[in-house]
């Protein structure tokens, strides 16, 4: 720098481009000079402030105060901050007050005492402060526990929510290790959290257990976010903890009532099973007594003989009904462990060997059944009931029943198609209900349990069943069965 460059103009230019807003006030309280930063801060065009009264920059309501500050400064002119500890405002060209910090420096000159005032804009700082206060208010008033901790596990902050949840006051717990909050059984939590934090990852809604000050345990949902320093290094973590003990209790209660329902259902099945069994023995007695009268009394009137036989017929009907009810109840009981899957066509052959198929009827095993593997026992019963049904309700001396299977999504769809009288659309749901038959029992011996049992067994496998096809001759009963892998 050359000495001759240090002219008044040179210094004026330095002041002009300084990043701090500066205003030079002359002894007559007029603005001698305002730099670009000052003009920009206060909303004036270049050079438009110089020569104006300082009052232009003092908000109306603080003029009196400003005069007092000014006279104080004149009394003892030394560098200081104006109005220490007070909120000062400079008036913007648009009339609004801008919060500023003002530094005053006396500059003695030939024509009296000048003052160089530097103005620091406090708006950004205020905004930051307000934002911090808002954040603090959120943390303070949050229902959830909010805790910050260092990487080495030392608790650094503790909000009232944390105090409510875990019982410690901030004085008692800040500076203590987080391990104090972790029950022994959850010791692995800390390592897991640290590992995730070190990868910069969040832990979201992690359900665990924490220990309160009084030693009691509480179910919590934990969300942990890393706290980074300016260079992006993890230096700690913010934890939000929610009390989920009520939800946990509700879940437990639900599980319990579910288990009770299952138990009640099982007890009902047990009852039905036992009742149907016990109702059978007096029935057997009735049948036998009728039989002995028929055997022993050869002089019986033909009408009485006929009536005794009717008694036996009714007894047989009721015995079948009881057997069907018992089978239905038994289908609700947990079966034996599932056996290895078997071939579907073998199951059908086994069914056919136990059925009394009248002459004139044929049951066709479609090639689609070959190679399909299924669980044997329940399918055996379902096929037995549907085929027996088709034969029993057939209205002609000859008929054909065809069993097919096709893949339907994840399941296998079996179809048992007959060429009997068909079931009207209106009854296609009703026939799956218990004790439902479509013809008089003296006409067709049926308990009305056959298809109800089919629906129950299929339902237990997670499948559905129904009747398809247009109204008219022939019934096609379908049911979905889970495919079994080998």
């Amino acid at each position, binding site marked *: 720098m050359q000495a001759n460059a240090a002219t008044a103009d040179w210094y004026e230019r330095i002041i002009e481009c300084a990043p701090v807003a500066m205003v030079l006030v002359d002894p007559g309280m007029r603005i001698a000079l305002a730099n670009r930063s000052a003009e920009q801060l206060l909303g004036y065009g270049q050079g438009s402030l110089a020569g104006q009264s300082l009052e232009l920059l003092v908000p109306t309501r603080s003029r009196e105060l400003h005069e007092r500050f000014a006279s104080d400064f004149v009394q003892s002119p030394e560098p200081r901050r104006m109005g220490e500890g007070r909120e000062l405002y400079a008036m913007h060209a648009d009339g609004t007050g801008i919060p500023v910090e003002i530094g005053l420096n006396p500059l003695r000159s030939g024509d009296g005492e000048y003052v160089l005032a530097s103005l620091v804009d406090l708006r950004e700082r205020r905004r930051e402060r307000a934002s911090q206060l808002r954040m603090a208010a959120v943390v303070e008033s949050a229902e959830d526990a909010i805790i910050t901790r260092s990487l080495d596990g030392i608790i650094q902050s503790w909000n009232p929510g944390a105090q409510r949840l875990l019982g410690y006051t901030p004085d008692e717990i800040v500076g203590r290790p987080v391990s104090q909050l972790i029950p022994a059984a959850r010791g692995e939590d800390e390592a897991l959290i640290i590992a995730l934090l070190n990868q910069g990852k969040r832990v979201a809604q992690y359900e665990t257990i924490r220990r309160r000050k009084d030693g009691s345990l509480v179910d919590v949902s934990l969300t942990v976010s890393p706290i980074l320093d300016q260079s992006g290094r993890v230096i700690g973590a913010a934890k939000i903890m929610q009390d989920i003990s009520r939800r946990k209790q509700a879940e437990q209660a639900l599980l319990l009532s579910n288990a009770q329902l299952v138990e009640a259902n099982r007890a009902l099945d047990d009852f039905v099973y036992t009742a149907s*069994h*016990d109702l*059978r*023995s007096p029935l*057997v*007695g009735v*049948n*036998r*007594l009728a*039989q*002995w009268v028929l055997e022993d009394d050869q002089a019986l009137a033909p009408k009485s003989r006929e009536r005794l036989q009717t008694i036996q017929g009714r007894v047989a009907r009721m*015995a079948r009904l009881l057997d069907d009810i018992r089978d239905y109840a038994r289908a609700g009981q947990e079966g034996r462990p599932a056996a290895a899957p078997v071939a579907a066509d073998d199951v059908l052959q086994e069914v056919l060997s136990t059925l009394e198929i009248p002459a004139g009827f044929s049951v066709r095993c479609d090639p689609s059944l070959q190679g399909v593997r299924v669980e044997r026992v329940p399918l055996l019963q379902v096929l037995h009931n549907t085929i027996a049904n088709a034969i029993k309700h057939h209205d002609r001396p000859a008929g054909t029943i065809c069993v097919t299977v096709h893949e339907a999504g994840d399941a296998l769809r079996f179809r048992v198609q007959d060429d009997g009288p068909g079931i009207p659309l209106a009854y296609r749901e009703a026939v799956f209900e218990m004790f439902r038959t479509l013809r008089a029992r003296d006409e067709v011996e049926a308990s009305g349990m056959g298809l109800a049992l089919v629906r129950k067994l299929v339902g237990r496998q997670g499948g559905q069943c129904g009747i398809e096809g247009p109204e008219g001759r022939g019934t096609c009963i379908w049911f979905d069965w889970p495919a079994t892998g080998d």
Partner: protein
Amino acid sequence: MDKRSATILLVEDDDVDAETVERGVKAARIEGSLLRVRDGVEALDLLEGRHGRTKIRPPFLMLVDIRMPRMDGLSLIHAVRRNVSLQRTIIFVLTTSDSERDRLAAYNEHVAGYIIKSGSQDQYIRLARMLEYYLSIVELPPTAVA
């Protein structure tokens, strides 16, 4: 000793079931007598000669129902097995119960067989024939003990 003259002690509370067994025994023409009592208490009275009952004379075997008033079949069998003079008695269970638990309990007490009443008359005739055959080829335990 003639094996066929063994007595069959039927412990059965149901009159129709009892008569069914009697008719079956008659149809199979088994020699020897059939004695019938209605429950476990009555059976023990007869087996031990208590309460004015004449003690049953060996040889005999028992046909025992499970569900009966006062003392059920399984309790009766348990009592018989713990009586040193009766413990070797041949016992068949004849019941309507097809429960696995009952079957297990019965065989744990070493019954000779567990028979489920099917309800058919025919089954009783076959039962009687089975007993006849059994008595004709099986040596009963010696009676001169206790």
